[in-house]
């Protein structure tokens, strides 16, 4: 009789408890629900960070455990954001349009409402027709399904094409990067039906709930993100703990040997790739309503490389490492680039962190790769082992 997952892996237990405690404390301290010590914008930053931690877990699963260095998972993240953004934007615009048409002498016909919505949304790209891909935009359930389906199918098709032709290693990384670039270039076009480089905006407003202040909405999203992160962590931990986990780790270490042992390597990789794409998409669908806007620049290949950087700094092959890396680097990034970090005067030159943070990050990352290949998680391991011995 195997022990339950939570007992077998102490790190899972610890992580879930820490996450729960953190969520509870933040909620109690928030403006919307409690003491008001944590500002709404801080809640949003924390909520977004939790989503980034979730996609980092997906990245860790696909790279750290299965050895596929995907430079395209942020594309799935962005697509998830687009899918939920379509519903948010459509319904919100519909509310506004209905409000403005209500004053007319005659009640509006469905055609008039649709025309007005189209003009409102697509006026910036010189259109007024609602493209066919917005067909389901008025249905929350359908768009939620699309959050999972669209990135999932894209990952499935792309992964199937890539894995069956035995593209591995750096080739695969470049190919995923190309896919991401193609997607972002496509979305940059004005006639892509998703508002070109304007992206979808105003996503922080929930349709039909305009009376609810942002201080409350932000906490809802924070809680949802925490829940998703916890669930994602459990799923990932479950996936890597069993036989499946052993097989994908073995694929990472020696793909050819596993293939010769009779395992359908391609199928395993495809499952991991698609599953992580879906997790990434869900993370994106939670992230962008908190960010308020999603545009093609978010999908640019560089974002996906940063994702790999977070996971590498946090420590690959450890789920908590990915979380630590994503949280640490993204929070530090926003701290340094937000201009809050103190400048360092050097007499003739002053180091302004807004300008030099990227340099520090880049070089720091090189140092981590060179001297601490297991990242921060590796340090944790060493500490734990020292205690045990």
């Amino acid at each position, binding site marked *: 009789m195997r022990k339950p997952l939570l007992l077998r892996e102490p790190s899972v237990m610890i992580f879930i408890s820490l996450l729960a405690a953190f969520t509870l404390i933040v909620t109690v301290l928030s403006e919307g629900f409690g003491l008001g010590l944590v500002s709404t914008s801080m809640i949003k930053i924390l909520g977004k960070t939790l989503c980034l931690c979730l996609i980092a877990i997906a990245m860790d699963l696909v790279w750290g455990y299965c050895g596929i260095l995907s430079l395209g998972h942020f594309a799935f993240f962005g697509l998830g954001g687009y899918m939920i953004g379509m519903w948010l934007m459509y319904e919100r615009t519909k509310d506004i349009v209905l409000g403005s048409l209500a004053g007319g002498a*005659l009640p509006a*016909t469905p055609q008039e409402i649709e025309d007005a919505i189209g003009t409102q949304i697509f006026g910036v790209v010189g259109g007024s027709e609602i493209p066919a891909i917005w067909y389901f935009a008025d249905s929350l359930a359908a768009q939620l399904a699309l959050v999972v389906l669209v990135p999932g199918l894209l990952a499935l098709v792309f992964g199937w094409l890539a894995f069956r032709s035995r593209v591995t290693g750096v*080739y695969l990384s470049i190919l995923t990067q190309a896919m991401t670039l193609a997607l972002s270039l496509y979305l940059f076009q004005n006639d892509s039906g998703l508002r070109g480089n304007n992206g979808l905006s105003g996503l922080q407003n929930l349709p039909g709930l305009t009376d609810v202040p942002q201080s409350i909405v932000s906490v809802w999203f924070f809680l949802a993100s925490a829940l998703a992160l916890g669930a994602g962590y459990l799923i990932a931990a479950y996936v890597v703990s069993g036989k499946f986990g052993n097989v994908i780790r073995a694929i990472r270490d020696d793909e050819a040997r596993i293939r010769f042992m009779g395992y359908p390597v391609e199928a395993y990789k495809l499952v991991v790739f698609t599953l992580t794409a879906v997790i990434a998409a869900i993370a994106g669908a939670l992230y962008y309503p908190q960010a308020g806007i999603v545009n093609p620049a978010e999908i640019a290949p560089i974002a996906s*490389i940063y994702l790999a950087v977070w996971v590498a700094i946090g420590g690959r092959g450890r789920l908590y490492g990915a979380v630590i890396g994503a949280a640490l680097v993204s929070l530090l990034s926003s701290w340094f680039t937000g201009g809050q970090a103190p400048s360092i005067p050097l007499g003739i030159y002053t180091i302004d962190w807004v300008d030099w943070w990227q340099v520090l*990050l*880049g070089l720091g990352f090189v140092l981590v*790769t060179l001297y601490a*290949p297991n990242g921060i998680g590796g340090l944790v391991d060493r500490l734990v082992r020292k205690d045990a011995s």
Partner: protein
Amino acid sequence: MLRTVYLILALSLLLVPARAQDSDLNALIETHRSDIEKPSRRTIGPVLDELVASGLPGVAVFLEHWREKKLWQRKSDGRFFFIEERDDGSIGLVDVDSGAEMGAAAKDGITNLKPNSGVRSMIASALVQFQLSDPDPQRRAQALTALERDPDASHLGVLRAAIDNETDPGLRARKERLQRSLTIQFGSDPATRVAAIESFAGDAGVDARAAINPLLATRVEVFDVIPDDLNIARVLEPGDDIAAEAAYQLLVEAGKARPIVALDARKQALIANLDDGAVGGVPVAELDTQAARDRAYQALAGAGAVPPLVTEAEQRAALEGHVFAEVYLEPDATLTAAARATLSDISSTVGFYRFIDLVLDGLSLASIYFLAAIGLAITFGVMGVINMAHGEFIMIGAYTGYVVQQVIPDYTTSILVALPLAFAVAFMAGVALERLVIRHLAHRPLETLLATFGISIALQQIAKNIFGTQARPLTAPSWLDGAWVINDVVSISHIRIAIFVLALIFLGLLLFILNRTRLGLEVRAVTQNPRMASSMGINPDRINMLTFGLGSGIAGIAGVAIGLFAKVTSELGSGYIVQSFMTVVVGGVGNIWGTLAGAGMIGSLQKLIEFFNPSNTLAAQTYMIIFIIIFIQFRPKGIIALKGRAAGD
């Protein structure tokens, strides 16, 4: 008509031997004095015509002076003179006709005539015919250019007359060409016009198309029955060739059908007829569908309050009862037929040249990709490392070129200095990167990829901190400006030719280094089997370092080349990095010919896609990448795959 009369008059004047009077020109000017004093665009035409038609020898000089505001009028009697400033500062009057001295004048006794620019341009066009036969070839060329820009029916005869005594073969060809295109536009005899049209068959010049196209201008008309005396281009079928709405609109405009009441107008009519919460008996609250609104409108129409709707059946019947046709504005069918045949011939020639142009474009893009990717191909092929900082070496090269230009102001010298210097700087940066980072990550390609990415973002930010975010210019020397123009369709800029040559040079150089030198031998040995090579006394570390330096150095040179036509920014390299990877992967790793093939394929393919969808380079790149992803399915190892042991795995 009037012009013909003048022409005859001019000829007759020429025949009459110079009638010795006071001076014909002075007399002629005198009769138009008031018009010349206060010229306007409207009144000056006949005067100019008459002056030109007079054929008097002094007319050209007079018109030139007039245009250049060098014509003066004596206040006392209103006579026109040129003036010359004498050595003693006084002003001498010069007769407009004979050029003889006519005594001195006080400054306040004469006024300068300053025609406005509209009048001056009319004078200039009248002058053309004199200039066409001017002894100075340069002025003849200028006159031709002016004529080409602003042709006029009156110039045709003048031009024809000026062809025969043209001695310069180039100008003669231009004159004849212009004469043909003027004949097409203004010729009086259909046969010569047709001949002129047909003479342009297969000619790719823009002027040929510009001369022929107006003949094929059409307008859409609606008829009950098509009359025979019209030059019909084609009959239009409503719904297929012409949208049904547009066709019906034509009927309305021709007064053959009732106007449709637009949706919005109908809505306004409903609002205007609101009566006690209902319109035409339908309560307002129910008017939230188009069907209900139509019902209400019809009720109103039945009561005569609004114009009745035009039903679909009525529209269809109206369309069916009439014929729509495109009618040539040019009534002569032989002309339009010749024009159409010639134009289709021209368009196939133009299509051929377009293809040539496309090939040249593709070649030039391919050479850019080749330059950008070849360094990467070497490092990737020999060492199996992905260098994400490769784009930043390109950037370093471009900035090196920029800095050199700040120090050496002469563009030619600075480019000649910048090329080797960019190589040296990027070479050193590459060697440093190899020694400090990549060597320690041997056999961990994914880590190398990420570590070099770290270097890449650090280098980009450092460049941004030093040079700022705005684009820095890297100016090409003046001999690289301009383009090699083959005809109006095919042209290629000198910079692109230079880059093509540069790419060829590097192709040759690399082939030489790899196949004919000791270094190349050792590089190939390390590529195939590092351990065997090292047991043969080759130091793989040294080879790796040199290879990496070489690859980076070439990236630096590519940076200078790219900087010449693109803006030098810190993001310069990252724009090329994905394309470079694609080039290497598609071509096949570790093989110069493979990179060449990859660059050629990607470059020409991208241009081809852009050709079919010219408005959208973003889409072109998207389709390109999708194509590459599919291509990799069929040739995962690239176009030219290494075979045998060298391929490794």
